């Protein structure tokens, strides 16, 4: 069979929005594929899918819907392969956990400051997840502070580590790949 005898359907011109849709889909698929394929296989798979989508004559939304949800498609690629840890998902979960911790800590501190400010002159001391928090409001000075030494680093560090290990499903590393 010669290359001239291979007839291909017309490929549509993808708009910027369509390309963004495809990128977002492939990004989500990449997260899920991390749990089932090696880095090299994942890269090759995504490259092939990107080319296939670029050459798919249907509208982008139809072509993506036909592929199915990224998690479902990833399972199709997995078949009988053992599941692997998803390190990038773990990193995202750890970052979100750290952010949530900081927000909660800040809200707690600001709440204390508001409480002492309404009763000024006053000062208060409390503990937020093993970290001492101090708030004070006097005519010449207003502020908040953290009094613990090592807890300030250890507590968020432990939270980040635990959320990373759980989010990445790190226990899967003990299972041997079949190929």
């Amino acid at each position, binding site marked *: 069979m010669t*290359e001239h005898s*291979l007839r291909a359907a017309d*490929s549509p011109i993808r708009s910027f929005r369509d390309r963004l849709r495809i990128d977002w889909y492939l990004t989500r698929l990449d997260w899920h594929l991390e749990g089932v394929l090696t880095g090299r296989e994942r890269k090759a798979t995504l490259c*092939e899918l990107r*080319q*296939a989508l670029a*050459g*798919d004559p249907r509208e982008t939304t139809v072509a993506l819907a036909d592929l199915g949800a990224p998690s479902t498609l990833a399972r*199709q*690629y997995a078949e009988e392969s053992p599941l692997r840890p998803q390190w990038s998902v773990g990193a995202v979960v750890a970052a979100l956990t750290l952010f949530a911790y900081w927000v909660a800590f800040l809200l707690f501190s600001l709440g204390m400051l508001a409480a002492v400010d309404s009763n000024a002159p006053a000062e208060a001391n409390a503990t937020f997840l093993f970290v001492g928090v101090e708030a004070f409001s006097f005519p010449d000075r207003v502020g908040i502070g953290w009094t613990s030494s090592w807890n300030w680093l250890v507590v968020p560090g432990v939270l980040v580590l635990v959320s990373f290990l759980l989010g990445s499903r790190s226990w899967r590393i003990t299972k041997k790949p079949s190929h």
Partner: protein
Amino acid sequence: MIRAVLPLLALTLIAEKESYGYQLTERLSTLGLEVTTGLVYPLLSRLERDGLVSTRMVASTNGPPRKYFALTTAGESARAAAKEQWHLVSTAVRDATDKEHSRDD
């Protein structure tokens, strides 16, 4: 059901004519089988990994290059084996359902 026979169908269609992924889903559709690309692309990937199909990139005048799949010698053997299995299963199913049908009569 369709998932179980999809490898046999794909190998058979590829044996008839070298095809790319989307083209294969279109050919299956022509046979009256609505199969999504979400099933076909992973299957082709596995067939390639197992050495049952070979691939080559073909430049397209109206889009990106396409990856065409062709049957290998190992793929031909796998297709023959799968076909034989399918005949065994389909014969057994037909015999069983025919018996059921005659009992109903």
